[in-house]
């Protein structure tokens, strides 16, 4: 980014907050329509019972749990990546962090609803909460589902605050430029921020502590999600590789989602001067590393299973390699490795369009991966008499489509009410850059003397 004045940065980044175009309204209306359809499908399921879904013996985990794992994984785009980049003091992170952190909060919120949707009787979700109930029954701490409760809530609270804290100075900026009701609303959100050295220092210290705390929490969240599966004696689930495999997959899909979101924001909010090719190039390299790591994990998992030659595991193995699930499996390999690899490995192709195409295929591939972990194992468990199939119904498909639209809708609305790039962080970065240039000029002048 060419050095811009602080005033220009403010004007550019506050521009998306003013005015609503017809295109924006149309997009919001379409997305909201699908979300309403999904809500209707959900209420129909609540009214009619879980029988309207495709969940049948033996496949009791289908689209809903696939979506749960997928969205929780996608949430690793934000807080984790942002925290790592903050701690590493990566200077290029500044325009990227908020875009990423928003994905975490929305994806995590969406993901956390799926176990409740999957319950069939969502009003009984509170049975999971560890409180002294009059029934005298306490939740079973040994159940990984209860670990999910603690891990996801910890991660959600951490991520929401990690997103909100650095937004406060930007709310103050909007407050000072707004009028009327808008000024009052942003005034409340700004908490009375004035920008004293004490406020800045405490904010930066708090962000640093939270960045340190949030990394192990993020790792634990997806490890625990993997243990929902790995703790069960189900073929191809009961594996020690699952936790790191899931964490790597989560970061992989998270980076892909971040690149996609950035590409769309860049185009539709006209942020070409802030979200630069270098950001896509750097994230593209990271995506390449994760793609290779994902391929390594899949290969290691498959090779170990094949060598073990345990009959129940081999049944699931061959079902995905050349059985009924093989089209999905090979599509997944294409989407997660074969298509992204050239786009990300060849420098000429690692453009904004190239990384966006690779990311799009990775998002599809990672959803398929979650599906392929869950369904083939459940449908081919041990004895042949217990085998079954799974076909999602329109209810599950509508709810799934609704969550993708809900994500896009929330993101669009958010980018209209909050600067999607942290203005004060960007200014601080620009200032450091200017200082560095001055130092270089000074030292070269001193050398010439």
């Amino acid at each position, binding site marked *: 980014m060419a050095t811009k004045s602080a005033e220009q940065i403010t004007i550019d980044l506050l521009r998306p907050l003013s005015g609503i175009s017809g295109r924006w309204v149309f997009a919001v209306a379409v997305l909201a329509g699908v979300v309403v359809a999904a809500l209707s499908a959900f209420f129909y399921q609540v009214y009619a019972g879980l029988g309207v879904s495709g969940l049948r013996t033996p496949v009791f985990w289908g689209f809903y749990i696939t979506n749960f794992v997928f969205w929780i994984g996608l949430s690793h785009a934000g807080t984790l990546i942002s925290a790592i980049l903050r701690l590493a003091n990566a200077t290029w992170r500044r325009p990227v962090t908020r875009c990423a952190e928003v994905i975490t909060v929305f994806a995590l919120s969406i993901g956390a609803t799926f176990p409740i949707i999957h319950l069939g009787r969502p009003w009984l979700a509170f049975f999971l909460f560890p409180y002294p109930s009059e029934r005298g029954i306490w939740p079973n701490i040994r159940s990984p589902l209860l670990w999910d409760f603690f891990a996801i809530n910890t991660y959600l609270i951490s991520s929401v605050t990690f997103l909100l804290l650095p937004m406060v100075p930007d709310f103050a900026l909007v407050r*000072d430029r707004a009028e009327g009701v808008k000024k009052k609303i942003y005034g409340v959100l700004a908490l009375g921020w004035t920008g004293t050295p004490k406020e800045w220092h405490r904010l930066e210290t708090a962000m640093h502590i939270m960045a340190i705390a949030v990394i192990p929490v993020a790792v634990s969240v997806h490890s625990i999600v993997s243990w929902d599966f790995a703790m069960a004696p189900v073929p191809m689930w009961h594996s020690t590789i699952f936790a790191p495999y899931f964490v790597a997959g989560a970061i992989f899909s998270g980076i892909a989602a971040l690149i996609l979101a950035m590409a769309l924001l860049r185009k539709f909010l006209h942020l070409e001067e802030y979200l630069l090719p270098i950001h896509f190039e750097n994230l593209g390299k990271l995506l390449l590393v994760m793609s290779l790591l994902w391929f390594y994990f899949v290969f290691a998992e498959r090779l170990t299973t094949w060598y073990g030659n345990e009959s129940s595991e081999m049944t699931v193995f061959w079902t995905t390699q050349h059985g009924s699930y093989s089209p999905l499996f090979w599509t997944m390999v294409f989407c997660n490795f074969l298509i992204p690899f050239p786009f990300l490995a060849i420098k000429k192709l690692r453009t904004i369009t190239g990384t966006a195409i690779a990311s799009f295929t990775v998002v599809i591939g990672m959803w398929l991966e979650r599906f392929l972990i869950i369904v083939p194992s459940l449908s081919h468990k041990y004895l042949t008499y217990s085998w079954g199939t799974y076909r999602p119904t329109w209810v599950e498909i509508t709810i799934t489509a609704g969550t993708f639209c809900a994500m896009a809708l929330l993101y669009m609305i958010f980018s209209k009410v909050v600067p999607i790039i942290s203005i004060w962080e960007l200014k601080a970065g620009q200032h450091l850059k200017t200082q560095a240039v001055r130092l270089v000029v000074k030292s070269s002048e001193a050398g010439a003397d």
Partner: protein
Amino acid sequence: MPSPPVIYGLFADPESADRGMNALHRAEIKPKKIVVMSAEPFDDYSFAKMDHHTPMPWIAAAGGVVGGTCGYLLARLTQVAYPINTGGMPIVAAWPTGIVTYELTMLGAVITTIVTLLITTRLPNWKSKLYDEEVSNGKILIGVLDPSDAARAEIENRLRGAGAVKVKATNPHH
């Protein structure tokens, strides 16, 4: 809450703000009476190096310990309160108890950090107080709270001399 009487200068860049701060130090203004505001952190400048000592990391660590203790007790007492038949295995399962303890340790640290931030910065504070919206336009505010009548003219001169674009005063005594 009424705004405190103050005299302050608005500086266009951190270098002149630094000069303004040094000018106030030379005038032997007590650091407690000096007020600074900016739209971004300027960690490398002397005017931004006030109030840099904070026990926040230690408080966060203590919060983690408290959170972890609560997590351990919650997990342990839950298992003891509703003992299920474990076939001879321990009633309190170590590994799951560790997971709950770990998550609540991190939650304790995070919540304590936020609470410490809010308490030490006295946020939220929506009541009227010293502020100038020019700060959000990039100006750096450096001023003196409750200056004595005798010192007002000298402070104003020093701020102007250091390069303040504007010098303003609120609630003058006369």
